[in-house]
């Protein structure tokens, strides 16, 4: 093992430790908060993990819940590598879901698997187009993607809301939704009576591909360089604008695929609300993974387990499963600034050390 790869491994271990610590402390604080609400800390966590990992149904639900999170988490990770905070994932997901639904409903001449693949591609294009728009705003006008993303989220969700309440709503439908997509566009399920579909496999493959893109290609190298130091990259002759555009398109495409996966695998049509804030939950997923595409796979599954567990529990008893949202937010805080956890620990450690060395120093003073 040479010096370089040894450093990479030790960095990896550091990152892993940092994320694990962040998650642990976040879970701990989440636990304290729910105990303040009169729930038992231990009971809630055992119930959650029993619910999600104890039964095969729970495990399938965990993976199904993880799927959209993985897509948006991967999307966020792609952006942040270039220094882009893509807050438009939610809107991109909706747009991807819409374009996928349109292709799924109206393109009726393709055979089964091809149709499903083309439909997913349409989702990626829909999401990517929104990313492209944000990238254009950023590179041409200097508009921060954080704000344009949030505004586009609202605009797109109102727009799709208008479509499913009006032009796209079939006459016989009671609730706001489009007509069902064709059978040929549906994703096949990995287990019966589960919402787990082939989308998960697609996403895992994409995570690996993006990882390879970032680590093994010139494009990936350029993106990383821009993300680390835009000025230095510019001096080195890398076109930063191009990288921002590429990252936002790719990032939006991932969120769009997430929307397509929801339409093709879960709802079988486009409905008014296809996402419960999956776009924003991509941020904690990516943060927990230290913004590493391979890590996203595991981070998404972990949050999937937490969420699914909380839902499973919630069916029998009432547990505030909203606390999972708080755990996620805290993970972002602690991963961003690990010193918040580490500096108190260090202070305590140095305090204990001082206590130990106190008498020794005093002794020396006496001898002198």
């Amino acid at each position, binding site marked *: 093992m040479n010096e370089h790869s040894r450093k990479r491994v030790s960095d990896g271990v550091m990152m892993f430790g940092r994320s694990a610590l962040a998650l642990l402390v976040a879970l701990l604080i989440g636990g304290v908060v*729910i105990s303040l609400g009169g729930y038992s800390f231990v009971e809630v966590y055992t119930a959650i993990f029993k619910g999600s990992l104890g039964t095969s149904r729970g495990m399938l639900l965990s993976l199904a819940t993880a799927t959209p999170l993985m897509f948006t988490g991967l999307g966020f990770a792609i952006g942040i590598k270039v220094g882009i905070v893509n807050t438009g994932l939610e809107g991109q997901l909706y747009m991807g879901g819409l374009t996928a639904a349109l292709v799924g409903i109206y393109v009726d001449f393709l055979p089964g698997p091809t149709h499903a693949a083309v439909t997913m591609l349409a989702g990626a294009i829909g999401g990517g187009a929104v990313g492209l728009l944000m990238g254009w705003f950023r590179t041409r006008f200097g508009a921060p993607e*954080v704000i344009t993303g949030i*505004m586009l989220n609202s605009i797109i969700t109102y727009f799709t809301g*208008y479509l499913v309440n009006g032009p796209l709503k079939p006459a016989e439908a009671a609730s706001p939704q489009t007509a069902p997509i064709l059978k040929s566009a549906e994703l096949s399920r990995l287990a019966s009576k589960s919402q787990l579909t082939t989308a998960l496999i697609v996403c895992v493959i994409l995570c690996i591909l993006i990882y390879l893109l970032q680590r093994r290609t010139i494009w990936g190298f350029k993106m990383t360089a821009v993300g680390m130091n835009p000025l230095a990259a510019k001096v080195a002759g890398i076109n930063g604008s191009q990288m921002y555009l590429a990252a936002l398109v790719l990032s939006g495409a991932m969120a769009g695929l997430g929307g397509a996966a929801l339409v093709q695998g879960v709802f079988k049509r486009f409905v008014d609300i296809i996402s419960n804030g999956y776009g924003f939950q991509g941020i904690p997923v990516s943060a927990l993974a230290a913004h590493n595409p391979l890590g996203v796979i595991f981070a998404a599954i972990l949050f999937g387990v937490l969420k699914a567990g909380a839902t499973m529990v919630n069916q029998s008893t009432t547990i505030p499963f*909203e*606390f999972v*949202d*708080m755990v996620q*937010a805290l993970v972002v805080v602690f991963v961003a600034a690990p010193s*918040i956890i580490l500096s108190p620990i260090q202070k305590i450690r140095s305090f204990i050390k001082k206590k130990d060395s106190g008498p020794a120093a005093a002794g020396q003073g006496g001898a002198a």
Partner: protein
Amino acid sequence: MNNDIILAIITSTLRLSVPVMLAAVGCSFSTRAGVTAFGCEGMMAAGAIFAVIGSDFTGSKWIGVLLAVLAGMLVSSLHAVLHVKYKVNATLSGMSVNLLGAALGALALKLVWKVSGMSPEVAAFSKIAATPSLSWMARIPVIGYVLGEQSLFFLITIVVVIVGWVFLYKTTFGLRMRMVGENPVAANTVGINTVRYKYMGVLVCGLLSGLAGAFLSLVGMNRYIMGMTAGRGYVAMVINNLGASNPIGSALSALFFGFFDCLQFVFQGVRTPSQILMMLPYVFTLIICVGNTKRSKGPAGVGQHFDS
């Protein structure tokens, strides 16, 4: 267009501008101290939920407002610690604060009232015309009607805008704060504690955003509803940018947002689909954001620290 519609537009524009105005003035302080106010949304959400909790538990809307302000400041202090102390990128620290604010709202609904989606109704502020001690204002000629339709918050907001402007532009404190935002290294050289001024800027932002949140829940709705901030924290940033990070400029710019926001209520039921009307304020904000960013004159040293 008849007079009724014009009056309705004026009154609801003023009413709907208030939260964005308050938060935008907060953003002015934060930006002038050199910290991008990305966490506004979370501070507003925290303010909105704690206003309702305070009002529900004590039956006093004023305790609710106090709690909202404190919650906003608490959340903003997290943003400040992350960005100023630990030098986390302001965008990322702001986003984490926003996620936390939204999560707090959802969790509090479940823990306090065992509900999800929205809280029960609580004691809230009424219109000036319906408030006994203030109803004389509604009888002032010409502006009486418009004023009577506003809440006490409207008056508070006017005071906040003026005091904010005086503070930033007519006091030593404000001069120093602006210097920290322009050039933290130079400010540090002349002996200004840049860290303290940055903290203060962010805390004022939290205070005013918390107040804006209290307006949303205690004046707008009488209750907390999930996602009721609806991106207004980000809108406030854009509005602040349009107002060149000056409290008075921000306040005037906020009126535009209020105008586009009120159309959905004024033209309710007129043949345009409601979603398209609801989209308008965001389309407006997006256009402002895209068109104004390059030529906006914010402080030069935003995001810089004195020791980096």
